[in-house]
């Protein structure tokens, strides 16, 4: 490892009195004193959330209003702190999406356990769960800190979809192509 020897020159008389340094430091602090505040007054001013931010996990619907989750429970299995609990259920009769087979009957994410790792989003084959921009979760009780299915959909809303996977499948089935 290279050794850099620093020349330590003796302090000049002015430096030994401290005063030039103190005056320079006071000039610096004066500039900060008169300058704008670096902080944000939080509840009124909110920070701009960059794209790709991993906030509170939410469930999303596709642009046709269909719930995308098929309760495969992969997120439940992958979740490191076991924050997700899914109760699978059947798709209601006559909803027009019978070919999907399953939908979550209950979908709970315990936000006291969630570590915002984003593995649920990564593992989801249906692109149904997203960590979106909300960064602040508060509640007065432990029960309030568990996001149920309706709340998850309320938080998630609708995200644009590029695949329309199940529409493509139904069209293929209608053409007689069968399932693949």
């Amino acid at each position, binding site marked *: 490892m290279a050794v850099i020897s620093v020349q330590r020159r003796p302090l000049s008389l002015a430096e030994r009195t401290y005063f030039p340094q*103190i005056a320079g*430091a*006071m000039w*610096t*602090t*004066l500039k*900060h*004193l*008169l*300058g*704008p*505040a*670096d*902080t944000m*007054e939080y509840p009124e001013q909110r920070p701009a959330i960059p794209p790709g931010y991993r906030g509170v996990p939410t469930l999303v619907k596709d642009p046709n209003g269909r719930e995308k989750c098929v309760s495969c429970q992969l997120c439940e299995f992958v979740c490191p702190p076991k924050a997700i609990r899914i109760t699978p259920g059947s798709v209601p009769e006559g909803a027009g999406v019978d070919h999907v087979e399953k939908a979550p009957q209950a979908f709970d994410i315990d936000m006291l356990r969630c570590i915002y790792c984003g593995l649920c989003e990564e593992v989801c084959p249906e692109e149904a769960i997203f960590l979106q921009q909300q960064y602040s979760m508060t509640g007065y009780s432990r029960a309030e800190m568990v996001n149920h299915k309706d709340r998850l959909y309320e938080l998630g809303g609708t995200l644009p979809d590029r695949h329309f996977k199940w529409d493509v499948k139904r069209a293929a089935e209608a053409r007689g192509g069968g399932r693949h």
Partner: protein
Amino acid sequence: MIDFLLSLPAPVLAVLKGVAVIGVIFPVAAACSMAERKVCAWIQCRPGPNRALPPIFAWIPGAWILQRLGVFQLMADGGKFLFKEEPFPDHVNRLYYTLAPVIAMVPAFTTVTVVPFGAYLGRGGQVVPLVLAGVDVGILAVFAVASLGIYSLILAGWASNSKYPFLGGVRASAQLISYELSMLLAVLPVFLWVNEPGAAGSLSLARVVAFQSRPGFWGGAWFAFTMPVSALIFAVALFAETNRQPFDMPESEADLVGGFHTEYGAFKWSLFFVAEYANMIVGSAVFSLLFLGGWNLLPWLPLADLLERLHQASGSALWLHPAVAGAVSVAILLAKILATLFVFMWVRWTVPRFRYDQVMRLGWQKLLPLSIANLVAYAFAIAFLQR
């Protein structure tokens, strides 16, 4: 009104004047704590305390300015200190533990009595200082009483019966002794000059201001210009005497937790701080009177001239009225005191704390020889000038 006040018996009048001055000093000292927090915040690019706003005041137009300045926060803190639980640690000496903050307050408010805080024009146009006790010992009384304040720190450190307060108390006394000498020696040239041969001797602060109000180039110059080294030594020693950064050895929270007030809480703790700020206010007042021309607005512009010019310019004799002249002079001195207090805070949030050995070396090996040399040089110069 004024005639009625002046016709009161002297003791009643003295008590009234004392209560009036303390009634100003106490809130200003308390407000200094908020000013300190705001200056700190602004220097650190933060807004500082700006949230508290009781709903009963919210309707007042302009209340938001007070809210942003943290005025209601200050009131809330004061109320909290009054009403919160007063903890007594088991290991303290209860009598002395309670006594220490009280002793801190007494010298802080006693020194105010000999500090003139304004002046008015008496009959015949001579400048009469406004002071609670117009005694000739002046600066001597300030020094004598102000150094008693250190006993409260030592007492607090000892009564707390715990190592960090004890160290804080020991440091406080060592620091006081080290800097008191330089401070006195720095002030001596001023009084050497003021007490010209032939005139009656006086250590009164009002006399110093009168000396800085004389006509002529050298007469109107403030002592900060004619004695910069004295002013500098006095200012540095003042920082040390009031235990302000970079000399806050008694407190030094990084190595002594809280120093002498580690074991204190609630109202007793806040009394220490009001006393510290009251000491700062008196120290700033003494500095302004000695070196910054007291109640003269500008160098070479004494109060009497200023009022005369205002009188000429406005054509109103109101400016020469004692009450108006007194208010003007108090406002000028108060502005100087507040500016000095701001510098105190500005330095505190700029300069890091000296190490204990550095404080001692600076006091004994640098400031003391410098102040002695300064005294000798000015003694010869003054002897030559006033021959």
